């Protein structure tokens, strides 16, 4: 396949072109739009949670009409609240962030940025998307299962998750949850194999590894993380399923009984085994979400700073170090789990070790924009928002990573505030930055930038109101995953704060509607975009918007330089495309 003629492909019908496509660009957009739909569901669930936390005990007859079981009698049921907790977490971690960042941006950008015509295995790629869609339908099905959705949280700690008799939603709902996660895992693995193979074997001439845009490095490392971490979750899920339906006892010890006094017919297992297996996957999963966000933010920061990325090599090394260390820090979720306290010490050490490469990245982002000429476009604003929230959330992690202070902070809203800032808001801002940035390439039109700016300012103020307040509520002692904090007198100072957080969250949620409207309206109504509307340097900006089938013309581009030659002295413009040969720059 040395020459590739676009015109050799007959024009495909609508279904083959946009629905059952094997084109990586269509699959990437399918991932993004599906993940957006899941985000709407996950977001609505969180709004309902905030309604309950802000005004516990209030009757909502209108909501009873919509959720006759969840709001039976007008007040939210405790098991309904907990199923909201579980489903919000699961949907956002897997079906929004993992899907949109690796599935969406990964599929769309990898071939375009490395100069390839498609993924290494286009059919496998399509299969990965359809498996993902099936897993989305399955997880949504859990909401409608008999007994409702599972109530054990996205971490599904055993034995609560292993014993259907331990609560409503732990029966069919939990079974569907496990099935959905297994399907998602399969989909993620298919994607991961594809990404690694594509990135290693299909880079165009001149695109050495050390000339890759940082987004590509991030996606490469993420794919390796997924390949190593997802199978362990799958193994844990298989064992859990056998505990639930096969009568085995991997996670269930002997001598248990239900609240009604009925004995549980299991023996021999160990509940902490689930936590070890889950978090061995779970902590790399945090970085599966975070690394692509870091990559996207790095590239966008450099583009709109009009200045090269600071210390490209250290960016690559620090991402690799984070990836490696992420496999040996899982125990910091388990300091108070009954795990040997000596291990707690070891995990404190490794956890604070992982803070070093994270700090390196922060320095480098600040170094990138220092001395810059910043263009405050919407993608840039979100990228700057990413840096700010990553700093806040990253630093609050140090309280939790130190085992001694974790005694006070564990399972409080401090944890909720921390992980939302660092692995929800920061990746979300990077994803927003990415969507605003690559939307013109995806659809050939620009999004409305005024609406985008309003979206950013409300979101940035909103997330800090919500999640910094949560840190403070956590210090007061507000426990996470409780349906009604007014049960505890010592939480009296947080009652009012909860209302403030809820109102901020509603405003924050409303601002996202603006984004959705902007996104879908701009597909048809936005002003036409040129080939390179941002004056960026990477390969996708050398082809028409949107790029045709096969991405590049008859000849693949040849890469002559790294992706960060912004404001290069001697060059005519303040950016030099990756395809620009040094001789041509010199003579211009």
């Amino acid at each position, binding site marked *: 396949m040395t020459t590739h003629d676009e015109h050799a492909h007959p024009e495909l019908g609508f279904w083959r072109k946009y629905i059952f496509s094997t084109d990586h660009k269509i699959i990437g957009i399918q991932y993004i739009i599906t993940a957006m739909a899941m985000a709407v569901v996950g977001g609505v669930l969180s709004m309902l949670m905030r309604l309950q936390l802000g005004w516990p005990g209030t009757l909502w007859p209108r909501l009873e009409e919509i959720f006759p079981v969840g709001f039976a009698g007008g007040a939210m049921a*405790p098991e309904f609240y*907990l199923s909201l907790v579980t489903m919000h977490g699961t949907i956002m971690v897997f079906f929004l962030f993992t899907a949109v960042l690796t599935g969406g941006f990964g599929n769309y950008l990898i071939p375009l940025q490395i100069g390839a015509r498609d993924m290494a295995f286009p059919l496998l790629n399509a299969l990965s998307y359809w498996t993902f869609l099936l897993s989305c339908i399955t997880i949504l099905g859990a909401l409608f299962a008999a007994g409702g959705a599972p*109530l*054990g*949280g996205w971490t599904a*700690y055993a*034995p609560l998750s292993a014993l259907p008799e*331990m609560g409503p939603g732990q029966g069919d709902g939990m079974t569907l949850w496990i099935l959905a996660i297994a399907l998602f895992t399969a989909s993620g693995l298919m994607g991961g194999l594809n990404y690694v193979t594509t990135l290693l074997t299909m880079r165009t001439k001149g695109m050495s590894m050390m000339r890759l845009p940082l987004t590509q490095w991030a996606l490469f490392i993420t794919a390796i993380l997924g390949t190593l971490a997802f199978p362990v979750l799958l193994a844990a899920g298989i064992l859990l399923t056998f505990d639930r339906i096969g009568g085995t006892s991997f996670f269930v*010890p*002997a001598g248990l*009984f239900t*609240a009604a006094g009925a*004995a549980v017919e299991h023996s021999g297992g160990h509940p902490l085994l689930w936590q070890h297996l889950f978090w061995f996957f779970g902590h790399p999963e945090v970085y599966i979400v975070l690394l692509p966000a870091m990559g996207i933010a790095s590239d966008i920061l450099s583009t709109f700073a009009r200045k*090269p990325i*600071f*210390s490209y090599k250290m960016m690559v090394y620090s991402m690799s170090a984070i990836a490696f260390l992420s496999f040996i820090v899982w125990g910091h979720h388990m300091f*108070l*789990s*009954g795990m040997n306290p000596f291990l*707690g*010490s070891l995990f*404190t*050490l490794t956890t*604070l*070790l992982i803070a*070093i490469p994270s700090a*390196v990245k922060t*320095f480098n982002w*600040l170094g990138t924009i*220092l*001395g*810059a*000429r*910043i263009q*405050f476009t919407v993608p840039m604003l979100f990228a700057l928002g990413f*840096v*700010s929230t990553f700093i806040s959330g990253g*630093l*609050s992690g*140090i*309280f939790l990573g*130190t085992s*001694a*202070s974790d*005694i*006070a902070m564990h*399972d409080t809203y401090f944890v909720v505030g921390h992980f939302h800032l660092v692995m929800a808001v920061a990746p979300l801002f990077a994803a927003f930055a990415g969507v605003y940035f690559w939307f013109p390439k995806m659809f050939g039109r620009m999004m409305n930038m005024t609406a985008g700016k309003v979206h950013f300012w409300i979101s940035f103020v909103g997330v800090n109101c919500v999640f910094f307040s949560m840190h*403070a509520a956590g*210090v*007061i002692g507000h426990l996470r995953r*409780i349906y*009604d*904090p007014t*049960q*505890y007198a*010592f939480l009296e*100072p947080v009652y009012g704060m909860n209302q403030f957080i809820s109102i901020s969250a509603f405003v924050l949620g409303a601002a996202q509607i603006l984004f959705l409207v902007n996104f879908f309206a701009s597909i048809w109504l936005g002003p036409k975009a040129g080939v390179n509307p941002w004056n960026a340097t990477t390969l996708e900006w050398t082809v028409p918007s949107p790029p045709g089938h096969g991405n590049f013309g008859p000849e693949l581009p040849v890469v002559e330089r790294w992706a960060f030659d912004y*404001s290069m*002295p001697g060059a005519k413009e*303040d950016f030099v495309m990756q395809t620009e040969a040094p001789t041509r720059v010199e003579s211009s």
Partner: protein
Amino acid sequence: MASGSGIGKVTIPGAVLGVLLFVFVLVSIWLSVADRFWFPDLASEHGGSVDTVYVVVLIVTGIAFVATQLLLAYIVTRYGARNGEKAAYWHENARAEAILIGGTAVTLTVLVFLGQYVWYQIYFTDPPEGGMVVEATGQQFQWVFRYPGDDGVFGDLDPTLVAGTNYIGLDRNGAGADDILVVGQMHAVADQPVRVVLRSTDVIHNFHLPHMRVKQDTVPGMSIEVWFTPTETGTYEVACAELCGLGHFRMSGMLIVDATQAEFDQWLEDQLVFQ
């Protein structure tokens, strides 16, 4: 294009973002130090050292937080784009990077050692002689406390004996004859160490005494010991801090710290009628 050097233009979005970040830093400091956003009142001996670790981490991360956010605010304010001007073209500074990495590493090492010193005090130190022992069993959705009685030895447990008020299946023959079971209430004596043996009969719970800075999972199939010394008399709440099912939010209890051993003994005796 003109080559850029020095500072750029102050733009409106840049200045707004800079001011927002500045306000945000001020609010964060207020949220971190104001009394109304502080821990519940401290009432145990070791709790002070947990709070100290928190304060030290707060100071260290607080400095890093203020420094980086304000630097970000400064940069976005002062380095806006100016028409037709390039940015500076530099992208390596090995020395600055080495200093920053080294500084971070040293700071974090200090934090590790300080934190681990306290961690060892709490988890690797035997309770002083002469304290009392109580067993706390978590079950959906209540705390069952058990005192060993005069013999000082807990009786055997057998899940088949669970019935009525025998919530944990206590075998009343042998050592269990004088065990005292109390649901939802636990007593201790001020300035006397308390060993708590934590168990669970169904799912994972977490035995949480906010005022004592005690928080420990209770794991079915395991028996985990923690100890603390209450320093203030009074009534305190016991909470469950690990999601355990639909009644998790109401799985609370009471810890009453008596002033004297005599008060405590009187209470224990009063419980005998319920056994």
